């Protein structure tokens, strides 16, 4: 800090008015009380709004709630049973396994025959070498 800056910084500033302390702190206390009152106001407003919605037909709302509870109960009981159903499925009998094997063989034969047929067709389609074709054209 140079001399000029020191000269400026030595100039004493005004003091805060003493009466402000009590006034401002009182307002702080008031604001806290007001804040709590506002919270109570909003909570009571919420409750009163809920009651205006539910109060006119309490039986209807109760019935609706019961239906929802029933739906949830059924849903949960179904979920519990589904793995048990899967466990109860018995393994296939030897007859069914033999039948499935027969079908499998039959399909395999059919597919094999089709493959042979396709192979024959592909043989027929194979073009003759280019030199032979040129010889045919020139002959």
């Amino acid at each position, binding site marked *: 800090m140079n001399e000029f800056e020191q000269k400026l910084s030595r*100039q004493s*500033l005004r*003091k*805060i008015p003493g009466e402000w302390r009590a*006034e401002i702190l009182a307002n702080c*206390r008031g604001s*806290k009380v007001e804040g709590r009152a506002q919270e109570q106001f909003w909570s009571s407003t919420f409750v009163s709004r809920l009651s205006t919605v539910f109060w006119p037909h309490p039986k209807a709302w109760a019935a609706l709630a019961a239906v929802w509870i029933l739906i949830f109960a059924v849903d949960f009981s179904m979920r519990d049973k589904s793995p048990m159903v899967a466990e109860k499925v018995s393994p296939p009998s030897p007859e069914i396994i033999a039948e499935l094997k027969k079908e499998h063989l039959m399909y395999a034969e059919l597919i094999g025959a089709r493959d042979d047929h396709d192979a024959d067709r592909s043989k027929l389609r194979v073009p003759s070498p280019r030199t032979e074709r040129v010889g045919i054209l020139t002959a």
Partner: protein
Amino acid sequence: MSRATEIERLYDEHAQPLFAFLLNFTRDEADTRDVLQEIFVKLAREPELLDDVREERAFLIRLAHNAAIDLMRRRGTREKTKENFAAEAVSPFAATADPDEKFFRDELADALGELPEEQRAVVHLKLWEGLTFEKIAAALEIPPNTAASRYRYGLDKLRGRLRPLYEEIK
């Protein structure tokens, strides 16, 4: 410590420097009082604001600065302050019996009032709060280089304006 005593402690420790800063910034005693009250009421309602604060003074200056800017914008007093400064300004300096000092303080108050608000804020915090540029920067939410340059510009203007008087009474 209860909330009430915490607010009292904050007031006793910081209200005076905040008052001086706000009075120099707004140049209006009523605005200064409104902003001070707004800050302390806010702290009373939301004491958690200070939970993670390391530099209480810098944090409170930031609150004060932002609240003062908001208030002045709301009231549209920015232009009014600039235009009618000479007629309405309140000096941020204490009264003195010495006539030379009184004249110097009056001239200094006028010269400060002619500075742009952003320069005035930095000059005040540097000269009368003794804050470093880093702390001023943190308080006013500006880069430290900006704080330093604003201080230099402001000080140059004050020096230019007050040099004849300063040389005379030195």
